[in-house]
Structures are given as C-alpha cells and as structure tokens.
C-alpha cells in the first residue's frame, strides 16, 4: 500500500545533541510537510517542500532545518534540541495539484524525547 513512513517512531536525544528525523513516501506526492505536535494540541506547521522549493513558516525557529534530497525522502534536522522541542513530529504529503487545496496524508509520527 502507498503510504507515508516515519523513522524512528521514538527518538531520545540529549539536550543540545543534534538529531535527525526521517520521512519517506511511496505516494509520489509533490509536497511534503513537517509538523510539530505537542500533547493535546493541534499540529503546528514548521515548513514544507513543494517539489524542491522550500517554504519556511515565519515562526519556525532557526534550530529546525529540513532537507529533501529526492521526491521520496524528507528529513527534519534539529540542530540543538531543547527541552521545549520534545514533541510528536508529523510528516505529511499531498499531491500538489497546483490548485492550492488537496488532501494531506500523515505518517505515524516520531515522538521525540529530550533529556
């Protein structure tokens, strides 16, 4: 089945130690998104790629970076994780029809713990 895959599902890191989360998709979608979701809150968009074009949300901290080496993969790099960065990180994809509105499909998420 076509899907959005996130690895690892659980990640533990130390305060200040860089960490990378990965997302892959077999849907062949043009758009990939990264969200941060804290407990009992709605997902908060960090950034997205439309193909190779990177779009950063204005309030996304510089501590968060992303890479998309090809259509299938996208990475979230947290350069110096703080305690406040502990959260669920969700990857999502959409076809990118050019109409500006299409359905997003989510991966299972990676739960990040910062010690």
């Amino acid at each position, binding site marked *: 089945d076509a899907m959005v895959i996130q690895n690892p599902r659980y990640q533990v890191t130390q305060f200040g130690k860089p960490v990378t989360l990965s997302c892959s998709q077999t849907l062949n979608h043009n758009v990939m998104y990264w969200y941060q979701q804290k407990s*009992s809150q*709605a*997902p908060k968009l960090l950034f997205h790629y439309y193909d190779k074009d990177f779009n950063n949300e204005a309030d996304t901290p510089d501590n968060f970076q992303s890479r998309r080496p090809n259509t299938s993969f996208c990475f979230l790099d947290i350069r110096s994780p703080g305690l406040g960065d502990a959260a669920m990180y969700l990857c999502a994809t959409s076809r990118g029809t050019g*109409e*500006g509105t299409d359905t*997003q499909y*989510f991966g299972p*998420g990676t739960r990040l713990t910062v010690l």
Partner: protein
Amino acid sequence: AQTVTQSQPEMSVQEAETVTLSCTYDTSESDYYLFWYKQPPSRQMILVIRQEAYKQQNATENRFSVNFQKAAKSFSLKISDSQLGDAAMYFCAYNSRSQGNLIFGKGTKLSVKP
C-alpha cells in the same frame, strides 16, 4: 486571516449512539476545502471526511457525515452508531487556494463508553 474553532474540548458518547462534533470557521474566501481528521491515542492521523465549499451536498463516508452550512460557516461532524474504535482526538481543518496549508482547530477529544 482564516481561523477554525472547535468549541468542545471533550465529548462523550455511548456505544451505538450518535454524536455531533462542532466546528466553525472564519474566512472571506469562497473557494475552500474543509476536513475532519481523526487521531487515536498514539496512532496515526487519518482523514475522516472532506468537503468542497462549492458543493452543496453534504459529504458522507459510511457512519460519518457532515452538516455543512456555508452561510453560517459551520462544519459539524456526525458519527452514527458510535464504536469503541471511534475514540480519538478529532481535528477540523481548513484549506484554500490562497492559504495553501491546513489550518487546524484545537481538536475535540471523543470518548466512547461501552
């Protein structure tokens, strides 16, 4: 700016009964899409139902249906014959041609009692 409001932080329903989750939104656009997503505890967020604003007919997906009132900017989700597996956080979301990205409500936590 567009906003999405879910006024019910928590709801509870008896198994096999019907429950309605509320969602209102604010926009000045005429062309947009509305979504309900379901997120079970520690599980994946999945799309429940989608409604195109230009369609007058309310969307339905098996036991899930919406009541879309465009003039009132209301988009409620009705779950019929509730099952234990329906227990989850439900997010209402908005998207539009100009917005490009999803705007989520704060969510409603639904509990299903056996």
